[in-house]
C-alpha cells in the first residue's frame, strides 16, 4: 500500500469531482426552479465546448472572446430551449418531460458531431501540461484549474441565491402558484435558470474539453453528473459540492486499486452503485428536500 499513490488518487479524484460538479450544477439549477430533470445537460456541455472551439479554434479568436461568445450563446440557447420546448410541457407527467430532455440529448449528440466532424478537437487554453509535483504526488494542472473553477462556480451559485433574482428563484422553487400571487414572473425565473444552466455548461465544456478533447464523449459526463445530483439531492447546491467530492474521490480511488484486478471500467460501476444505493436508502439525497406526496 503506497500512501503517495492513495493521496494522488484522492486529490485528483476530488478535483475531477469538482469538475463533475460543474455539469451537475446545471441540472440542479434547472430542477430547483422548475422541477425538470434535465438529462440534456451533458449534451449542452458538449455544444458549449463545440461553440468555444468554433470561435477559438476555427476563427482564431482569443480564448477570452470565445468564452464570452459561448457564455452569451449558451445563455440564449438555454432560454430558447425552455421557451420552445419545456414551457409547453408544464403539467405533463414527469415521464414525458424526462423523455423530452432525452430526445433533446439525442438530437444534440447527433447534430454537433454530425455537422462539425466526429474526430476529437483539441481545445488549448494555454495551460501547462507539466503536472505539479508535491513530494511524490503528481497533480494535473488542468484538473487543478478545473477543480478551482468548479468550486468557484458552486460558490457563485450559492452567492447568487442570496441576490434579489436568486431569492425570486428560491420562491419559484418553493411553489409556483404562490410565487405568481406575489408578482414573481415564474416563466422568467425558469427561463433564467435555464440560461444559467447554459452558462454552467460553458464552464464545464471548456474544462472537460481541454482535458479530454471536444467530441461526443462529453455527453457521457451526464452519468457521473446524475450520480452527483442524486447523491447530493436534486435541489441542493451544497449537495453538488459534497457529492461531487464523494463521487470524484470514490470514482478515482476505487478504480485505482480495483481496475488492475478486474480489467478496467470500474469507474462506471462505482457511479452506478452510488446511484443505486442512494436511491435504495435515501432517495432524496444527502441535502435534498424529501418529497411528500399528497394522495
Amino acid at each position, binding site marked *: 500500500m503506497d500512501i503517495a499513490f492513495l493521496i494522488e488518487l484522492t486529490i485528483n479524484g476530488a478535483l475531477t469531482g469538482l469538475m463533475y460538479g460543474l455539469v451537475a450544477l446545471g441540472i440542479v439549477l434547472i430542477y430547483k426552479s422548475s422541477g425538470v430533470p434535465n438529462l440534456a445537460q451533458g449534451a449542452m456541455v458538449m455544444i458549449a465546448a463545440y461553440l468555444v472551439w468554433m470561435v477559438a479554434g476555427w476563427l482564431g479568436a482569443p480564448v477570452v472572446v470565445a468564452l464570452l461568445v459561448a457564455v452569451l450563446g449558451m445563455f440564449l440557447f438555454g432560454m430558447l430551449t425552455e421557451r420552445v420546448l419545456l414551457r409547453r410541457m408544464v403539467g405533463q407527467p*414527469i415521464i414525458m418531460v424526462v423523455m423530452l430532455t432525452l430526445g433533446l440529448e*439525442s*438530437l*444534440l449528440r447527433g447534430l454537433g*458531431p*454530425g455537422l462539425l466532424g466526429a474526430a476529437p478537437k483539441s481545445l488549448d487554453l494555454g495551460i501547462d501540461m507539466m503536472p505539479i509535483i508535491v513530494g511524490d504526488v503528481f497533480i494535473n494542472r488542468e484538473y487543478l484549474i478545473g477543480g478551482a473553477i468548479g468550486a468557484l462556480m458552486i460558490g457563485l451559485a450559492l452567492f447568487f441565491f442570496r441576490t434579489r433574482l436568486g431569492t425570486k428563484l428560491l420562491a419559484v422553487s418553493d411553489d409556483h402558484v404562490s410565487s405568481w400571487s406575489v408578482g414573481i414572473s415564474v416563466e422568467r425565473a425558469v427561463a433564467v435558470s435555464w440560461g444559467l444552466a447554459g452558462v454552467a455548461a460553458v464552464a464545464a465544456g471548456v474544462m472537460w474539453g481541454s482535458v479530454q478533447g471536444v467530441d461526443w464523449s462529453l455527453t457521457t459526463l451526464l452519468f457521473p453528473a446524475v450520480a452527483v445530483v442524486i447523491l447530493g439531492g436534486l435541489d441542493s447546491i451544497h449537495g453538488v459540492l459534497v457529492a461531487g467530492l464523494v463521487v470524484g474521490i470514490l470514482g478515482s480511488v476505487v478504480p485505482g486499486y480495483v481496475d488492475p484486478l478486474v480489467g*478496467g471500467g470500474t469507474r462506471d460501476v462505482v457511479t452506478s452503485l452510488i*446511484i*443505486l444505493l442512494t*436511491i435504495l436508502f435515501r432517495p432524496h439525497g444527502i441535502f435534498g428536500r424529501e418529497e411528500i406526496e399528497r394522495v
Partner: protein
Amino acid sequence: MFYRQSGIHHTRYAATRKLWPLAADRRLLGGLLALALLAPLLLPELYLNSYLAPWLIWTAAALSLTLLMGIAGQLHFGFAAVMAIGAYTSIHLARAGVPFELALIGAGLAAALIGCVFGAAALRVKGLYLVMATLAMQYLVSWVIINVPVISGGAQATLATPEVRLLFIPLDGDTALYYTALGWTLICTLLLLNIKRSSVGRALVAVRDKDFAAAVIGVDPLRYKLLAFFTSSFLGGVSGAILAFCYYQAVTPEQFGFNVSIQLVAMVLVGGLGSVIGAYLGAGFILLLPIVLTNLLAWVAGLELFPVSFNLIAHIPLMVYGALIIAVILFEPLGLAKIYDNIRKYFLVWPFRHAQR
C-alpha cells in the same frame, strides 16, 4: 380499417368482449396474417431477413417494454440490458447442449430474475428515480458482461450462436428464422392484447394511474409492480434471445448498449404508450426512418449539388431519434397509435362525421 360500422349490432356481451368485435377487423387481420405467413414466398431474401425479421423482433421487444412502461407505468431505461441477459443466457445454454426451447425459457427466467432485483428498487421509488435506477442497471449489466470473460468470451469477443433446432426443425435458413421471429411476435401480441382486457391488465392500469388509489380499491401495488417487472423482463429476455439467434447470429456487448435502451424507449413512445399496434408502428418507424433518410441523403450526396459528408450521414439516426421523440411528445403524446386511431375513427363514420362517438 376503412369500412362503416352501420348495421353491426351486438346482441350478446360475449360478442362485444371479443378481441376484435368487428368482423371487418377480423378479416383484415386474417389477411395481414396470411400475408405475413406467405412473406417468404413473396419477398426476396434480402427484404425478409434485413427488414421484416428485425422489424418483427424489435416489435416483440417494444411490446415487452410497453407492458411495463405503457400499461404498468414503470419507466425502464435499461431494457437493452434485460435483452442482453436473455441473449447471453440463451447462447450459453444452447452451447451447453440444452434444447433451444428450454434455452429460451431459461433466457426469459434469467432476465426476469435479474430484472426483478433491480425492479425491487421500483417498489420504493417512482418517476425520475426509477429512470436513474434502471439507468444504473444498464451500466452495471454492460460492465459485468464485458468484464466477465466467461459470459462475453473475452473483452472484445463476439459470441456466435450455435446451430439449434426449434420443435425438431433446424434453424438454419432465412425462412425458418423468419417464422421463429413471426411466431414469437404473434405470441407477444396476443399476450398483450389479452392482458389489456383482463383483470390483471386493469389492475396494472390502476397502479399506473395512481398507486395509492389502487391500494385503496384493493389492488396490491407492490405485487402488481413486481409482476409487471417480472413479465416484461421475461418477454424482453426471450426477445433478446430471439434477436440474437434469428437476426444477429453473433452477439457483442455493444449491441445491447445504452443507445439501444433509448432506441427501445423511443419505439414505445413514438408508437404510443401502452398500445399494441403502436409497438408495431413505433418499431417500424424507428428502424426504417433512419434507413430511408440515410438513403435519401446518400442520393442527395450523389447529385453533388452541395457537399454532404459521410460523417453527417452516420449521425442521421441519432438526430432522427431525438427529433422524433421531441416531435411526438410535443404534438401527439399518445404517439402513432393515436394518429392511426384518429384516422380510423374518421373513416368509420365517414361521411357523417358528426355521428363520431
